[in-house]
């Protein structure tokens, strides 16, 4: 099997690359910048074929898909840090919408056509009152990122109906790992817990402690992507654990993993929150993925947090001067 992963240098891209390589795939990928910029790819770099591809050019996508004889195309490339979208809403929207449509169009035109996965996001449900959210829930995005990800979902649906292409969208709820960049709240907390336990820092400032999120492990979520492309019929799937935890619980778990009481170290700073565009609760119902794809997350909440704290401990304890 041959697959192309856009954004292969990101958290999800690197986990997906590992999964596909383990499965004996020939893996190609695109990155922004150079492959060397992405530490997570270090152990895989020699086994990935990196391609230069303008993702907003449908003809180029079709040409690459044909040249590589792709069976599968995973479109993950996007800026997923929500606050960044308020800094450049036009540029990021433009890149995201044009790439989504071009990948759909290029993948469709390739002969034979490649099966496609597109990453949508639970941010499309930021303004939704009902809980949990499922595939049939009406999207109410509150940010440019959410609006662009609703665009992706709708574009996949329209291409599937129009051309019968095998294109699926994953409505991915928050998924984390030690490879999350440190400006995301999960990693910010696990890194701080590790740093404080090592005596490198003494406190952590957090915004809204009451936000509730459905946090899963990225390594589990990329399995769902692959299962979607293996299913006979393409469809859209919520990928989530179904369990919600508050930011407060995350802090409690992270500090607990290093034997500390979070209340001694976390300070609340309202200005760090996302304000009115921060969804109070994003909780997914993964029933469709479970029933039709047989997908189940394997890493639970405390296990995920502890894995991230341990990774941060290792990272922070590493002293390059030591033999």
């Amino acid at each position, binding site marked *: 099997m041959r697959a192309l992963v856009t954004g292969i240098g990101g958290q999800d891209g690197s986990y997906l690359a590992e999964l596909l390589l383990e499965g004996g795939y020939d893996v190609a990928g695109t990155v922004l910048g150079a492959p060397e910029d992405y530490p997570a790819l270090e152990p895989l770099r020699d086994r990935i074929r990196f391609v230069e591809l303008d993702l*907003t050019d*449908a003809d180029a996508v079709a040409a690459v898909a044909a040249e590589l004889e792709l069976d599968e195309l995973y479109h993950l490339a996007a800026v997923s840090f929500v606050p960044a979208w*308020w800094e450049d*809403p*036009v540029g990021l*929207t*433009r890149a995201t*919408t*044009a790439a989504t*449509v*071009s990948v*759909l*169009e290029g993948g469709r035109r390739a002969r034979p056509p490649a099966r496609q996965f597109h990453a949508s996001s639970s941010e499309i449900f930021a*303004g939704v009152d009902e809980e949990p959210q499922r595939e*049939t*829930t*009406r*999207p*109410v*995005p*509150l*940010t*440019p990122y*959410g*609006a*662009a990800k*609703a*665009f992706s979902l*709708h*574009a996949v*649906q*329209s291409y599937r*109906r*129009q051309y019968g292409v095998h294109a699926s969208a994953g409505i991915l709820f928050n998924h984390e790992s030690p490879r999350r960049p440190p400006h995301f709240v999960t990693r910010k907390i696990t890194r701080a817990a590790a740093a404080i336990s090592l005596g490198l820092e003494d406190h952590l400032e957090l915004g809204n402690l009451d936000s509730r999120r459905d946090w899963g492990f990225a390594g589990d979520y990329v399995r769902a992507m692959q299962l979607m492309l293996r299913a006979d019929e393409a469809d859209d799937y919520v990928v989530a654990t179904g369990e919600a935890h508050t930011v407060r619980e995350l802090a409690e778990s992270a500090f607990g993993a290093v034997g500390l009481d979070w209340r001694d170290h976390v300070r609340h700073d309202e200005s760090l929150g996302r*304000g*009115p*565009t921060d969804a109070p609760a994003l909780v997914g119902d993964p029933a469709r993925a479970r029933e039709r794809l047989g997908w189940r997350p394997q890493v639970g909440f405390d296990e995920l947090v502890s894995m991230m704290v341990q990774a941060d401990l290792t990272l922070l304890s590493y002293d390059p001067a030591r033999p």
Partner: protein
Amino acid sequence: MKRALITGITGQDGSYLAELLLEKDYEVFGMVRRASTETFERIEHLVDRVSLAQGDLLDPASLLAVLEETQPQEVYNLAAQSFVPTSWNQPVLTAEYTAVGVTRLLEAVRRVDPQIRFYQASSSEMFGKVREVPQNELTPFYPRSPYGVAKAYGHFITVNYRESYDLFAVSGILFNHESPRRGLEFVTRKISDGVARIKLGLESELRLGDLEPRRDWGYAGDYVRAMWSMLQQDEPSDYVVATGEAHPIREFVDLAFARAGLDPGDHVRVDERFLRPAEVDHLVGDASKARAELGWEPEVTFRELVELMVDADVERLARSAATGIAG
């Protein structure tokens, strides 16, 4: 004197809205593209009374310049690549213009003057394969074309900017609205034009696709009143604008031929080539919120709409035949 800026002023809705605003003593500015291929036919009768400003939804700097130059209190974003089949041939351009263009204009409004009231022209195409009948402001979107996908994005980003920046930004979800100024590529106008040609002996048949899809068709002149009204409210909100009645294309055909004293059975040919892919089914709008909060009511009935379109095309073609200019 209030000032309003209309993008897409050369389109059907833009021309009716410009007329309405002029009646209300607005100073009206229309944004048009440089090196434009658009025709000014629909606003020919208004050229002395509206000012045109050059700007392009693809070019953020031009949007800032137009807003600074015209200093509007109200902006109506009606420009779009609105023909659904074209959106399948040009999906990337459709997204650039119809989706990203809205973000560009909202950004420009926010920067130049956040007090500007902003109207976004949304469309019933966003409902696509409808999840419930009739559709209201809370019905989920399930767009079936790149045009519908881009319009859904435009709606979401308008709501985003309202909630995040406290802009007076509203989205009007307009169901099909027609008039003698509808482009000939749209089925209603194709029918009225075709009937007029047959009546005048210029053609003998009219080729159409599937006649069964039902649409909620209103009169564009009525719909622009709803747009204006949305921007006069105390609080910004989104509204469905529709008649609430769905009619099959066949009924439009029957009424149009009857108006001309003709029998459609003698002239209509169903042509497979015109069958539109992914046909949207059973779109019918529930405009009760607009009725209750805006006091809006459509004034032109379905029959009146068909008849005024046929009459206008007969008159236009008869005039050009008389002056020797082929229509």
